[in-house]
């Protein structure tokens, strides 16, 4: 039963107006006695699972096996935001202990491996030359700064205790490294800044090295970055730009950007997407994986090979497919091994990222499409509009009908005649209906319940007749560029956007537009901006 009084009150409360939320600092209930944040503040950033795993591989060798740790949590669309907010549970601490212990066991399995890691293998607990070298060299990369002498002594005492008890200095060193990597100084990026004449806090060069490595590589700094920090070269925007430019030419940048794309487009949801295989027998895990690969290849090719306009992906006429995906899309493509670039024919209207299986399938229901979900995806993820959840006590299944001969469009139009629903659904459904010529698993189709599909609509005043035209309207939308920048910024900063970020975002959006809307350039502008180099102190 729909309770109209409550609904009207709720709609008023939610402010369902559909304007772009740039910035959107609304945290309705931050907690008892906690005021909503107005200024970005310095904080600890827990390593995301990717950063943790990559760091262990960098520190201990690519062959170490890293067991599962507490999974990332998504806040405001990104794992990095939650990692800067949440505390690790006791079970999570135990998982770290197990993962790091297992990794050190592999890394210390033979004397040769120890020598490969440190350039020496300690012959006794008195072999301070080797032990200090091992601890300070690995410690500098693990802590993303040089160790203090107190820290060196702390870990040397571990070596002494355990090396003596086990009569094996190597075992002592292994446990000391285990301790170092279990320490919050490794598990959290400690970027607290130092007082600056501007009155704000300025991140130190070492902290900037940490921020750059986490943002651009999803790992810790390499030696070159730490050397630059030691020379204080990262205290200037120019120094940061130079390192960022170097880093973006490295393969680690491609992997990190793919991780950002996974967060942005919520491909974890794709992995758990259920389809009714009696209706869609082609759906299986390899098809799902191919859709994911298609998405990543498109972005990687555009950003790192072509270095082109990121928004051109929104209505691109080419994509990457393997044989299975080509057949699924009905594309005529010569059989070949692996993925290759193909042109998309005009006939189906399949264009750009929105025409890809990853986004179409993960934003649909198991037995049918969902224009509401697809429209919400475009509104929230590509245009940064704020779409509230359904008000309480509202039955949300009005769009469902078992009647043959009724298209989803006509059901949704009925839905939007209900004033309780129209406010928010108007933000979503007309967009999603533009994608109705693709079924729940992204196969092109012409009819719904025996009726020809009308894929026309209007996006904020711009009319479209098909999915292809919708894709272009999304690319041309004034929110598209600023929204992309906002998403990059949110992930890089590891926090939700605040009012105080408005000027920085406007500046970055303007340079994004002026520089051919290149994602790599946007990243360089972002990490070298004052907003990324300065911060406010946290309340004590």
């Amino acid at each position, binding site marked *: 039963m729909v309770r109209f009084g409550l609904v009207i009150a709720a709609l008023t409360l939610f402010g369902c107006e559909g304007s772009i939320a740039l910035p959107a600092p609304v945290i309705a209930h931050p907690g008892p006695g906690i005021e909503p944040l107005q200024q970005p503040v310095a904080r600890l950033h827990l390593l995301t699972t990717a950063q943790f795993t990559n760091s262990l591989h960098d520190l201990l060798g690519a062959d170490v096996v890293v067991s599962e740790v507490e999974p990332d949590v998504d806040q405001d669309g990104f794992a990095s935001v939650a990692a800067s907010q949440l*505390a690790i549970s006791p079970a999570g601490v135990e998982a770290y202990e197990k993962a790091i212990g297992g990794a050190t066991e592999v890394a210390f399995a033979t004397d040769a491996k120890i020598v490969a890691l440190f350039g020496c293998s300690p012959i006794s607990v008195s072999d301070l030359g080797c032990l200090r070298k091992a601890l300070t060299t690995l410690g500098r990369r693990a802590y993303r700064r040089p160790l203090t002498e107190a820290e060196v002594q702390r870990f040397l005492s571990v070596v002494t205790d355990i090396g003596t008890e086990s009569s094996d200095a190597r075992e002592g060193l292994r446990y000391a490294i285990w301790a170092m990597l279990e320490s919050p100084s490794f598990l959290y990026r400690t970027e607290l800044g130092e007082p600056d004449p501007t009155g704000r806090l300025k991140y130190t060069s070492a902290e900037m090295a940490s921020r750059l490595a986490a943002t651009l590589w999803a790992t810790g700094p390499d030696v070159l970055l730490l050397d630059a920090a030691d020379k204080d070269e990262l205290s200037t925007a120019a120094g940061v730009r130079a390192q960022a430019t170097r880093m973006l030419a490295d393969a680690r940048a491609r992997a990190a950007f793919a991780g950002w794309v996974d967060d942005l487009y919520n491909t974890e949801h794709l992995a758990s997407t259920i389809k009714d295989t009696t209706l869609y027998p082609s759906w299986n895990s390899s098809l799902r994986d191919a859709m994911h690969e298609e998405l990543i290849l498109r972005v990687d090719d555009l950003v790192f090979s072509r270095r082109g306009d990121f928004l051109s992906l929104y209505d691109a006429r080419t994509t990457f497919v393997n044989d299975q995906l080509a057949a699924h899309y009905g594309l005529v493509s010569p059989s070949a091994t692996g993925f290759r670039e193909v042109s998309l024919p005009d006939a189906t209207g399949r264009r750009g990222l929105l025409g890809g299986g990853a986004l179409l399938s993960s934003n649909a229901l198991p037995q049918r499409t969902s224009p509401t979900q697809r429209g919400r995806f475009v509104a929230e993820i590509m245009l940064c509009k704020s779409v509230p959840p359904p008000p309480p006590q509202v039955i949300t299944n009005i769009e469902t009908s078992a009647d043959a001969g009724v298209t989803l469009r006509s059901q949704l139009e009925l839905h939007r005649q209900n004033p309780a629903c129209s406010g928010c659904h108007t933000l979503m459904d007309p967009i999603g209906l533009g994608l109705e010529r693709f079924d729940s698993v992204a196969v092109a189709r012409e009819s719904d319940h025996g009726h020809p599909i009308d894929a026309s609509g209007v996006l904020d005043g711009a009319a479209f007749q098909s999915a292809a035209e919708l894709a272009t309207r999304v690319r041309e939308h004034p929110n598209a560029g600023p929204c992309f920048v906002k998403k990059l910024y949110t992930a890089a900063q590891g926090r939700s956007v605040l009012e105080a970020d408005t000027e920085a975002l406007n500046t970055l959006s303007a340079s994004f537009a002026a520089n051919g809307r290149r994602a790599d350039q946007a990243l360089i502008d972002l990490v070298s901006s004052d907003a990324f180099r300065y911060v406010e102190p946290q309340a004590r």
Partner: protein
Amino acid sequence: MLRGVLAAGATVALPLPRLAGMLDGNGLAYADGQKLPVRFGTWFFGNGIIPSRWNPKNVGVGADWALSEALAPLLAVKPWLSVISGMQNKVPGLYAHKSYPAGALTGAQAMAAGDVQLPSIDQLIAKLNPATAFPSGLHAGLCNTTGAGALDLCCSFNGPNQPNPPDYSPTSLFSKLTQFSTNTRATDPSLLRRKRILDAVNEDAKALRTRLGAEDKSRLDRHLTGVDELQQRLVSLAAPHVCGDVTDPKVAYPDRGDDGVITKARNQAFAELLVFAMSCDVTRVFTYLFSSAACHGSYADAGLDNVTFHEDYGHRKSPRGSEMATEGFQQGVTYTMARLAELLERMKNTPDVTGTLLDNSAIYITSCVADSINHGNTDFPLLLAGKAGGAFKGDVHVRGNDDSVSRVPFTVLKALGGTATSFGLDEGRVETGVPELLKA
């Protein structure tokens, strides 16, 4: 030096099966005077119910009332069951699948990101009796698919920004618990070493802590609580274990399905592991996320279509029509209660120091909404199972008059020794429980 370090300062209760011979003459406490602990669990399922098919028709005790259609699978444990109907979740439904579960678990509104403002009931109870190998409890989950937000995959929170995510892997939980099963091995030297390096971690963290603001200090302190608990556990592990064997899910349930999937076999595996943990006194608190708030997982194991239970059945969006979806949803709720029964019956059949494990436990069962179809907040699903060591009557159906849901967890908190004079915050705050549930 390391030798002997573990024995010093050890305050943890060593894992032991409960035996009547350990009691004082009255059978009400251990011979050393310690009060018999009551075990607590939160058993959470997503997507709510159909109130008309959940609520028993009559109120009363014993033969006065009969189980409803949805609760029928709980027949074997009816004498231990308390049904509380007619209660209202008073927390405003700002974010349907976040506000109401936060209200039922913490008594307070959720934050926008799905986080909470107050600790959940299990963590309040865990602090009453922390001297076990897992002081913050064990947290397991069956279905790892949600449509609401990642934090909605949790039903245990130590406070704001401090979730206890569930472990979806029976083999992972087994690997933790099997260390406490009976064995004859010599003391593993790595236990001493692992405890030693955690001392170094603590020292390192202390130096870092002085540089942090208030929020980060709180986060770091939570991390160090985990370090302390791990050290406490290493102490327990170094002691002889006489808890018997714990069932290996790989052996007993080889075809149980992937982690995160709803199957009877996975549920049974978890039930056996949790019963072992409580019976052996490895922990006195657990949470079990049968399915998350707004669970989008499939209930194919219940005989339903391989679709999202939340959308296709809970919100009746199946293209096969709302009548089919309604019956399917009810079938899913009944299936869920049958899985709950598997845990409760195992507890009923597990001897404890006096009576059975179910006699000495309080299990709080609730969901993320009341009526699934409209995110309802009245007639909220609330059950208690177990006698809480004699505190609860059991076999009772109490019906409220839109009274606050918070009164139920508050009743449990008080029954288990909590001294708080209220539970919850703002609209969800209460100062009274449900006295009709308590034994006179």
